[in-house]
């Protein structure tokens, strides 16, 4: 079992190494990086490449660790008992399996994505230490112990909104997806739009990197925004020559909505364009 990227996901050698080491040594892999560099996509692609079932656990600020294991719906049981439902006798009817349990229960090795773990409460990662270590947990209500049939491959993503506890970090492998350099980005574009005209792609990349260089942007455009933008450019049949205009007064690229997400950033670019114009005249 070796991960080697997929047809539509370009993985750097470092990333492949990290993924394969995590798989071989059965450690959770913690992925960080700028938004839009393909953190979440990675788990999907690993599942695809290894032909493994994927379980995704999206974390929100209200998510509790035990929800990933199981939930005991005491309230329905109480209601049912008042209504005289015969199902009440068996507590197992009221135990809902969480994502972790589902992944443990797969006969094949599954991929479990714990997405945006930093959204959860500070204590959340600590509450999962034992489960991720041993790949087993105890169901208090029924007295059974759930053990993973096959240790799942666990991918965890974080956007750095909160610090993760040391004890948790120690158990993980870590990879930081750096923003791709130009050749890698070129490969990514080629993979997504094989038919794209070379000069259009090259100009678009130029413009994209220039935009990333603009200081004080609130949100720098990243890979996923580039892909969206190219899609729009293609759909609109924008010729390469439209991008080629090196007129600094037009600092704002066509269809910028896909690249720039903050109103303030748009204003910033307009201001820059204005300053260019003024400087040009003077």
């Amino acid at each position, binding site marked *: 079992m070796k991960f080697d990227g997929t047809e539509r996901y370009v993985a750097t*050698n*470092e990333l492949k*190494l*990290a993924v*394969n*080491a*995590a798989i*071989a*040594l059965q*450690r959770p892999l*913690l992925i*960080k990086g700028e938004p839009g560099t393909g953190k979440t996509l990675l788990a999907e692609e690993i599942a695809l490449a290894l032909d493994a079932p994927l379980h995704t656990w999206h974390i929100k*600020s*209200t998510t509790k660790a035990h929800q990933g294991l199981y939930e005991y719906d005491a*309230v329905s049981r*109480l*209601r049912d008992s*008042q209504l005289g439902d015969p199902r009440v006798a068996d507590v197992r009817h009221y135990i809902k399996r969480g994502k972790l349990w589902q992944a443990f229960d797969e006969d094949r090795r599954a991929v479990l994505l714990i997405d945006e773990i930093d959204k959860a409460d*500070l204590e959340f990662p600590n509450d999962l230490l034992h489960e991720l270590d041993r790949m087993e947990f105890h169901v208090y209500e029924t007295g059974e112990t759930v053990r993973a049939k096959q240790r799942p491959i666990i991918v965890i993503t974080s956007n750095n909104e*909160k*610090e*993760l506890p*040391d004890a948790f*970090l*120690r*158990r*993980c*492998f*870590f*990879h*930081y997806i750096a923003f791709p350099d130009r050749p890698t980005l070129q490969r990514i574009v080629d993979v997504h739009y094989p038919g794209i005209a070379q000069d259009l792609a090259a100009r678009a990349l130029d413009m994209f990197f220039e935009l990333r260089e603009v*200081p*004080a942007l609130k949100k720098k455009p990243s890979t996923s925004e580039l892909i969206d933008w190219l899609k729009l450019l293609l759909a609109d049949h924008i010729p390469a020559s439209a991008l080629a205009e090196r007129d600094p007064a037009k600092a704002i690229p066509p269809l910028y909505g896909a690249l720039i997400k903050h109103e*303030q950033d748009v204003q910033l670019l307009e201001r820059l364009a204005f300053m260019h114009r003024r400087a040009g005249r003077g």
Partner: protein
Amino acid sequence: MLIGLFETLRTHRVPVSLREWLDLMAALDRDFAFADPQEFFHLARTTLVKDERHFDRFERAFAAYFDGVAKIDPTLLAQIPEDWLRQSFQRLLSEEEKAKLQALGGLDKLLEEFRKRLEEQKERHAGGSRWIGTGGTSPFGAGGTNPMGMRVGPNGGGRSAVKVWDQRNYRALDGDADLSPRNFKLALRRLRRFAREGAAEEFDLDATIDATAREAMLDVKFRPERHNAIKVLLLLDIGGSMDDHIKVCEALFGAAKAEFKRLEHFYFHNFIYSSVWRNDSLRMSERIATSDLLRRYNADYKVIFVGDAAMAPYEITHVGGGIDDFGGSEEPGEAWFRRIMAHFRKVVWLNPTPRNQWGYTMSNQMIRELVDEHMYPLTPDGLTEATRWLAK
């Protein structure tokens, strides 16, 4: 195996534990990264380092171990971006100085020379006329007498250095430095203000009993959990004279980070001007306009300034007086400070220097006036006092 690397990493303050080390050994045992230094580097990083903030330290430690230059003063290894030096140089030097610079062969020559000597130099250096270090007449180093002395490395003698080149002065505060912030945490705890908001998911016993009695049938009620709803905006002075206080600031920062979910922090240099920055290594490129702060954070954010309030009075009162105000702002720091005071309801200034020294600097009195006398010493007691006022 490779125990030396492990020790080098520890001395470079990369937080590596035995557990991670054994992981690396296990990975090597399985022939990952066999006889390929590049692969080994990546493998070691993926298993040993868990935070991208430590990548830089890790890389330095790795290089130190494998190049056998473990003794180099780490402050000198920090890469100094060339265009940054170049740009600031042009702005700073007077015409006369630029002319003198030509005598040395121009700016390009100087920069090139600087890099060359940085390479050649293998250990920390003080005095002399050639190497980069402290004292002496070499064009590079701290406290020199050469007209275009490029300042590298820590502490300038009289504390009055204008425009410092020292990168490490500005290193971002290590938020996790757990020095002894327990006292701080206890003091900050006063600031907690719990509120129930968000999804209703906590069992509400009283409401359930009430509703059940009314309906004559079980009716379970929930309510949102209690969260600390306090919002804090922390503005930290770093660089220059704050070097002496870096430990205590780290302790405060660590405590605040653990205590508040909604903590925003920014850095400034000596006093507040038209912009601040959040990420210290990007302080030249990614500045945030102070007016943006006012727009982005509403009035119920508690603002905590941390700084020694020791500077030349003109840095407060004069346009362009800021030592680090490259933005070319059209207003003095004072105007910006008043704006902050007007926008936020609660603002305090924490000062790491002891209270009995405050009278000696004029700027201190001026700032105390500006913050309506809400300046407190940065000690557990002072913090308690400050939080008591902030929580009112």
